[in-house]
């Protein structure tokens, strides 16, 4: 069965510092990996995806993620966090036109 793990419920980081939100996956076949962000009372907003090609993918709002096949990881990163980045972040995976499997989410809190 496919699964996505986000080992941290909460990540706290000071504004201006780099941030990392961790994600590991278990998908049969080649994984399609995604990050979504959810602001309070809002839907899921697409940030970035990895389908194939370069392991480092860049997305919206300065976020990037690195696909590591050997570690089955797809950690979300940003070089310099903003207070406005505070939100709930979901990692998700599928194997191509299959339903997304989501991690439980990680709440990011950026402190001024």
């Amino acid at each position: 069965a496919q699964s996505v793990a986000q080992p941290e419920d909460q990540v706290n980081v000071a504004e201006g510092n780099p941030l990392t939100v961790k994600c590991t996956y278990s998908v049969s076949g080649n994984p399609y990996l995604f990050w979504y962000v959810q602001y309070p009372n809002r839907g899921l907003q697409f940030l970035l995806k990895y389908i194939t090609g370069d392991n480092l993918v860049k997305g919206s709002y300065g976020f990037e993620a690195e696909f590591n096949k050997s570690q089955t990881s797809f950690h979300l990163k940003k070089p310099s966090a903003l207070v406005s980045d505070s939100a709930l972040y979901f990692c998700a995976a599928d194997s191509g036109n299959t339903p997304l499997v989501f991690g439980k989410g990680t709440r990011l809190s950026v402190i001024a």
Partner: protein
Amino acid sequence: EPEVTQTPSHQVTQMGQEVILRCVPISNHLYFYWYRQILGQKVEFLVSFYNNEISEKSEIFDDQFSVERPDGSNFTLKIRSTKLEDSAMYFCASIGTGSYEQYFGPGTRLTVT
């Protein structure tokens, strides 16, 4: 930028009542999905829909649930007889041909009392 819309934003209903949640996917998208998120828990897949029929469903999607695309633009999720445990945020998503990312609507918060 085109977006997925959902109505209502919040629905309160009594246990045993029927509810219909509505979604308008992005106009040229062909694959449609419903997911739900119980408060504080992960987002879970309910059902996918393509070419006017269900293509895949989860074990959550039992006989109390149904989906329909009645008029070529709306995509609805019906719960025939709601239970307390159906209280959740319900998200609609759509995806276009040749694309990989699903676009999500803002969700409908369903509260069953």
